[in-house]
């Protein structure tokens, strides 16, 4: 009886994985730490809107004319919504899972981007990188010449000034109609 059991044990072998002495095997499709590439980020904030637990947040500091992207890994639930909505592929879930820390401050990551100022009133209103990306997108979708210049001029002003800009046009349209 005992001999049979020993044979069975030898046949099965050792089931225990050798982690942490060798790197752990991670399955394909494992959702680990969201890896942020600050070079590719345009600070549009889509990930912060999508993030269910608010691990990703955007804060705007108009005095410093900076917008900052923040992640708190202690709150992340690794759902991958941020990766799904990112237009530039700046954020991607990696296979990394070794996130334990002794110091809570190490769970934070931040990236600061410059804000662009309005061409009319000078208020800071949108990340400069985002505006640049939008112009590149318009060029890609086939806009050129006068129309592109017109759109570019519109992009350079803040929403409040855009509304003010629209008033004379709307008045003219209204007069045409009547």
């Amino acid at each position, binding site marked *: 009886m005992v001999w049979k059991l020993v044979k069975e044990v030898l046949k099965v072998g050792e089931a225990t994985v050798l982690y942490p002495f060798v790197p752990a095997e991670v399955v394909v499709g494992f959702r680990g730490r969201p890896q942020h590439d600050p070079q590719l980020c345009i600070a549009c904030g889509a990930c912060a809107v999508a993030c269910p637990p608010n691990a990703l947040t955007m804060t705007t500091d108009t005095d410093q004319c900076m917008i900052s992207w923040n992640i708190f890994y*202690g709150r992340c639930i690794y759902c991958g919504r941020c990766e799904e909505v990112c237009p530039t592929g700046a954020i991607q879930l990696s296979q990394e899972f070794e996130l334990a820390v002794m110091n809570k401050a190490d769970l934070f990551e*931040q990236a600061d981007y410059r804000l662009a100022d309005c061409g009319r009133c000078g208020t800071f209103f949108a990340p400069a990188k985002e505006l640049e990306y939008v112009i590149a997108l318009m060029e890609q*979708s086939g806009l050129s010449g006068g129309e592109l210049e017109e759109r570019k001029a519109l992009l350079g002003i803040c929403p409040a000034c855009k509304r003010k800009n629209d008033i004379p046009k709307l008045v003219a349209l209204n007069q045409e109609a009547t």
Partner: protein
Amino acid sequence: MPQTYSKDTLLGASRYTIQVDDETARLKAALLGDIRRSVFVYRVDCGGCNGCEIEIFATLTPIFDAERFGIKVVSSPRHADILLYTGSMTRSMRVPALRAYHAAPDPKVCVAYGACGCSGGIFHDVYCVWGGADKILPVDAYIPGCPPTPSATIFGFAMALGLLGQKLKASHHIQADNEHVHPRHPEIALDVRIDIERMSRRMAGYWHGKRIAESFLDLIKTPDTETEASIQSYLAQQDDPRLAEIFAHLQEVYRAHSQGK
């Protein structure tokens, strides 16, 4: 409830957090240095979803075998060296959490486990949630994850016991002057891209859908004759009938667009 989004609020202990005196802190450091392979862990669930508990017990199975490192889960806080707090610390569970803390003999180490234990996780702004073990207890180590995998748990304990070093470091990037971002897939028309992404998400879900759409768009070549061959070789390499099915649908969408032109 305080504003729970700013870094200062998240980092700072609340006014209810138990303070550790210098003597206990010294003893605690000595405990972590000397404990080596006799770690008795008491697990306190402070209002979690039980995902973390399942992973803790998976860590104790023969596959991950936490007892290799002398890590043993005990059934009373009076036997414990390490208190493992899971769950987002709900209002009702904070008194039992404190009772477990006071029942454990000094020096003791507190570990916050899971996204909820570290910060309240997805429940951080619920009315009855205090948002993490460190809002009332002096926490020494944080193991984030939702839930942390058994490997992540073993890493967390190995790091707390000084066997392995911490890997994650805080970082702060400030925009440089030469940072420019270009749109991806500039050669593919916007409406084609949107339709492909939509079809892919419809078939594979949001996360895999995005990844599959990206790999499909990467395979589209400028002379269209090469596209077919590159897709076929990619599918042969992946050897996944589910992927082949999705790619067939994406190709249909793509062909419809190119014929429409």
